[in-house]
């Protein structure tokens, strides 16, 4: 029996279906991300679990007990809101203390637990400060301490880092992961930031248009996306038109003027001559000299991005993005004629009809 189970969870707003028949099983202590573009239903899902939105149909069970029939105030979930939703008229310590007061925790224990929670997020020095006098990152920590101090059964995070600047966001991601590991609370994170989801989670739930596209570990979802949407949403990717051909030594995939052997792992239910969508990650592509497993093109632009170079290469299959590490090796200049190569196993193949 899984810790948290969503079964056929559905929410309709009039004609619009925000969440469509969502199924998910979460184990105790797991860190799960609901990832998708805005309007994909991830926040609505979180709000149904929290109880702020009524589910149209479906079930949510926590430790085997129905959750949807419980009032939001009695669900015992810790929530960090996108706006943090700190109480502006209370100090950091009073904010954190509020949930314990509601649980009627005795004063001595309360003060001790508030101090512990503030220490956990590294804010002991700012206990008596009001939220308006704090930076975004500090407010975020108070919100996290306030949610964790009640020892919630599940921690729900609604885009908690989206209001922070890039550098602080990265720091908070690492810290959030450490804190979650320390306290071991089962956590559900809603985010539209794929790198955030990959950094933090044990598993990612990629959502689009109210439906789940894929549930997988970050590496698996990135390397083996279940749909073109997942492939394009998780990181950058190149999509090309390819075709299945038969050459003396076996079936091959033809892309532009090059062709690749069909990898062992590829399903073999395709017939010869069939059109395929071929997707390759930009960092898997390298500049090669051999004519066989490669695609010809001309460098349109090369952009320096610190630890890597970003190339745009015009090919017979359209513009391709190539990422090369800035490791001192010689790289082509703009206008150079190049050949792009990649290992056959790094290609994702999909029959054309299944593409959305």
């Amino acid at each position, binding site marked *: 029996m899984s810790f948290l189970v969503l079964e056929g969870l559905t929410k309709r707003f009039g004609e619009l279906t925000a969440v469509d028949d969502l199924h998910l099983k979460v184990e105790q202590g797991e860190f799960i991300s609901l990832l998708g573009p805005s309007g994909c239903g991830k926040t609505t899902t979180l709000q149904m679990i929290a109880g*702020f939105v009524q589910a149209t149909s479906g079930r949510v069970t926590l430790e085997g007990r129905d959750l949807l029939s419980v009032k939001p*105030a009695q669900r015992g979930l810790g929530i960090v809101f996108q706006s943090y*939703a700190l109480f*502006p*008229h209370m100090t950091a310590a009073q904010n954190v203390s509020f*949930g314990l007061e*509601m*649980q009627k925790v005795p004063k001595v224990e309360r003060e001790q637990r508030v101090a512990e929670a503030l220490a956990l997020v590294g804010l002991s020095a700012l206990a008596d400060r009001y939220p308006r006098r704090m930076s975004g990152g500090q407010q975020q920590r108070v919100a996290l301490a306030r949610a964790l101090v009640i020892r919630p059964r599940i921690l729900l995070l609604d885009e908690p880092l989206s209001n922070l600047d890039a550098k602080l966001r990265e720091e908070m991601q690492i810290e959030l992961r450490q804190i979650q590991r320390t306290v071991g609370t089962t956590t559900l994170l809603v985010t539209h930031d794929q790198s955030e989801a990959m950094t933090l989670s044990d598993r990612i739930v990629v959502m689009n248009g109210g439906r789940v596209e894929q549930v997988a570990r970050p590496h698996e979802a990135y390397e083996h996306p279940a749909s073109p949407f997942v492939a394009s949403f998780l990181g950058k990717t190149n999509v090309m038109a390819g075709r299945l051909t038969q050459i003396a030594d076996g079936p091959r995939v033809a892309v532009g003027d090059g062709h690749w052997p069909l990898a062992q792992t590829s399903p073999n239910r395709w017939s010869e001559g069939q059109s395929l969508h071929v997707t390759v990650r930009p960092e898997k592509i390298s500049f090669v000299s051999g004519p066989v497993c490669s695609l010809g093109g001309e460098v349109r632009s090369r952009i320096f991005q610190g630890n890597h170079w970003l190339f745009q290469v015009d090919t017979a299959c359209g513009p391709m993005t190539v990422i090369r590490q800035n490791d001192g090796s010689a790289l082509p200049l703009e206008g150079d004629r190049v050949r792009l190569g990649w290992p056959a196993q790094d290609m994702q193949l999909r029959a054309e009809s299944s593409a959305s």
Partner: protein
Amino acid sequence: MNRQQSTALTPWLLAGPALLLFLGVVLVPLIMTGMLSFHDFSTSKGIQPVFLLKNWEEVLTDSYFHEMFARTLRVALWVTLACLVLGAPEAYVLSRMSPQWRGVFLLVILGPLLISVVARTLGWALLFGGQTGLINKALMGAGLIQSPIPFMFTETGVVIALTHVLVPFMVLSVWTALQRVDLATENAAQSLGASAFTTLRRVVLPQALPGMLSGAIIVFALAASAFATPAIIGGRRLKVASTLAYDEFLNTLNWPLGAAVAVLLLLGLTATIVGSNRLVERRWAQVFQ
């Protein structure tokens, strides 16, 4: 150099017309009223431009004037309290409405402000109307009271009518404060285990408090200085500071005494407003700025 000079002058030139108007129609008459309060008056000789403290002594020592000012304060306090009790919940409901309905109800709340205070107060006079007023008839018909309540020429009547006139100011003030409240704070309180009532008391109310206080200051000042409503509902029998000053000016023609009453009212109000503003700022500065 020239250009710099002209840019330094620009704000003064732009503000000039308004400053002159302020000087001409507010400051000068106020100073003249202040000076007038030290002049002498007798029915035979009229106003004597001399410097005397006689009017001030009279206003500050005579129990007749004490009663008037005490009544003004009492009425203003009751009106402020009634506006808080009626207006603050109304503003909260308004802030939680869907935008279309909010538009409609804002119009309903603000609509009365478009009608003259005199017309609205006369409306109340009709409803109160002595023994046979509509309200008394309804209350007696419902069996709630045995004999008619005297509304006309009583403080109760003045407080009711003034509350009706001034409650929109309270609603607007509290509503403005509530608009800055993050709706998610209510959800946060709930998720931490707070009941709806606790959420209201410990999360919403404290955040609405600055709006309630500024609304209270506005309502108090307007109620204490109101003229038309006390004049019509209170009449000549139930004078407050503003109707008292009016009567001294226009009925007994004792302008200097009327001026002393008016200046005292102004000083009292200014002290109240500045004092409570200080209090609000000191208490909430670090929370709401």
